[in-house]
């Protein structure tokens, strides 16, 4: 959480600094709400550790979650965006042999976790500020903090007992491309496609026996949202 606070503080400072000298528009602040379609392009090493047969890997299916963001206008073309999805329940599935011993593995949900992934982006909007349709691009930083990490009953059966899961926080780059359609001075619609990178070392502890895998995923998010400016 300390790293997350640091990221947010830096973002707030940048926002305050950038607001100096901006070109004023009618409304400086916008809140957005919408839907996040999240695809995990996941790549993981095979799980390693004691009593792990070769070829055990994991996969994470797509999720849909609530998208929330606060956008601060910095100039006619520059925005600062602080985006946050409602922490999606992310299921980790076994990928590999059908069974481990006689315990089903492939396709079984072996763990779940939620993750809080605040992302700060600096977006550049093209075209004239008065245009109703403006494309934009942005870059920024993603911070991911995993919460509520649970091994499922099936995961415990595969692992060999009650299992605690550790996933350290991750900081990585983020980028977005999108379109904003201004319906009224206050209301707009947004569609964007974002990518970020999350690196984590998953560690599972079952009765003191540690198994690990390094996972790297690029959450690709298609976001459709509505914004209210004030």
């Amino acid at each position, binding site marked *: *959480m300390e790293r*997350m606070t640091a990221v*947010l503080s830096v973002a*707030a400072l940048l926002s305050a600094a950038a607001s100096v000298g901006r070109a004023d528009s009618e409304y*400086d*602040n916008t*809140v957005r709400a919408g839907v996040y379609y999240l695809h995990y392009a996941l790549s993981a090493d095979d799980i390693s550790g004691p*009593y792990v*047969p070769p070829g055990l890997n994991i996969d994470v299916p797509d999720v849909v979650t609530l998208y*929330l963001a*606060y956008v601060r206008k910095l100039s006619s073309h520059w925005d600062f965006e*602080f985006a*946050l999805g*409602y*922490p999606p329940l992310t299921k980790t599935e076994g990928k590999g042999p059908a*069974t*481990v*011993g*006689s*315990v089903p593995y492939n396709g079984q949900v072996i763990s779940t976790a*939620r993750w*809080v992934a*605040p992302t700060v982006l600096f977006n550049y909007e093209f075209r004239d500020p008065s245009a109703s349709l403006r494309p934009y691009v942005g870059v920024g930083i993603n911070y991911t*903090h995993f*919460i*509520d*990490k*649970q*091994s499922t009953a099936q995961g415990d*059966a595969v692992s*060999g*007992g*009650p*299992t*605690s*899961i550790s996933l350290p926080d991750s900081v990585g780059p983020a980028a977005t491309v999108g379109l904003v359609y201004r319906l009224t001075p206050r209301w707009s619609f947004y569609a964007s496609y974002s990518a970020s990178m999350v690196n984590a070392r998953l560690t599972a*502890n*079952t*009765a*003191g*026996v540690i198994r690990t895998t390094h996972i790297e995923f690029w959450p690709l998010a298609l976001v459709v949202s509505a914004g209210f400016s*004030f």
Partner: protein
Amino acid sequence: MIKTGCTLGVLVMAGMLAACGSDSSSATVATSNARGTLIYDPPLRIASLTAAALQSQLSSTASGQQLAELAGTPVCGVDFYYEQYWTVDPVGAPATASGALMVPTGTAAQCTGARPIVLYAHGTQTDKAFNIADVSNTANTEGALIAAVFAAQGYIVVATNYTGYDTSSLSYHPFLNGDQQSKDMIDSLTAARAALPHSFTPATTDSGQLFVTGYSEGGYVAMATVKALQAAGTPPAASAPMSGPYALEALVDAVFYGNVNIGSTVLSPLLTTSYQRAYGNIYQYTTDVYEPAYAPNIESLLPSIMPVDTLFQQGKLPETALFNSTTPVIPGNPLLTAALAVPTNPVFAAGFGSPNLVTNDYRLSYVLDAAANPDGAVPVPQPGVPLAANPQQGLRKATNLNDMRNGNWVPMSPMLMCGGDQDPTVFFSVDTGTMQAHWAALPTGLVTVLDVNAPPTPGDPFAAVQAGFQQALANLIAAGGPQAAVESYHTTVAPFCTVAARGFFSQF
């Protein structure tokens, strides 16, 4: 203010989301190091195999097929747990050890509910990382054996790896230390009983019926455990020590007289290190016992992370030459000098050569004590086969103390002693024969001796086991000649005696 409020609102929301939920937890970690304390509760289940999967796994190798044929088709699946627990070292200090808890699974009546426990002691292992619970390790043939013979037929199995192996905190193995190893066995049982209610199959419970068995070193440990359980007032329902060096003083005397057993160059360092660490009177310097070429690292050599063949290749141990082929001469004692000469028996003669492991001086000091304070079983069995009355030499004191004749005890529950009469590693007549003679006055039926190499008697419940062993021995001779059969004899007896033990236990 409105702008600030909104920004704070988002941040507060982030904080709330981050705070929600809680992570899953792992096993409870023991805070006590009292004997028998399970360190992780529940213990790790290493593998879970249905009866069909177990059968399939056994069928995948030639040795597994033979084992399945002998043990019978699995009736139950088996969950293999890896337990870690607290026990004590030879001087009573806390030490950790690990082992296996094998729990039968499945819906058949004999696979669930209240089940008997088989407490098993394994044979000597040179691999320091040996873990009998790791059934995925194809080298763990003994784990597969007891799973197939006992667990797959409805017995809960508890088997320690012993202190000094696997993740044990003890840096050496208390080899053939009856007091320590029996405590280790009992502590593994206590820990397993604590683990059972928290297993994946808590409906499978301890019926309270306990059987104790083990092979080779484990045969000795099994008998020592019976002795300790009786002393604690909790004798097992029955026991089956198999091919164990029970009459330890007699066996080591026989070896020093020249009847060098197969494996002696490996067993000797294990024995001297064990007793040196326990009693401190085996040697002042390792060169007191061992030739200079081997003495420097001998104390920490075994068990080893290196295969024993590598130790031989690297010259850290001679492969067979325990004693020098130039044998000591005892002035004025031609009979003893002759007794120490290289024997004519080629199996024993293989224990002589150069370079060799044990110095002639040490051999001489041992044999002079054996001659002055003879064991009643060596060289010629005396009535009652008594222990040496007053041994003075350090190693003889230790073997005397740990000999199963010591303590004037007798089994209180039925015991089967199984072995093969031509065993070149643990001599049947010297060990099983000595204990049989020692307990000859006991009521009929309390102690049963089974020689798997004896001619089968029609109607004898063990006739099939004897016939099976003798066929296996004939197959060995046909495939590799007599020498191959001699070298494999000790290990070939094991599955047949184990099946005999199961048959014996099934009577109770």
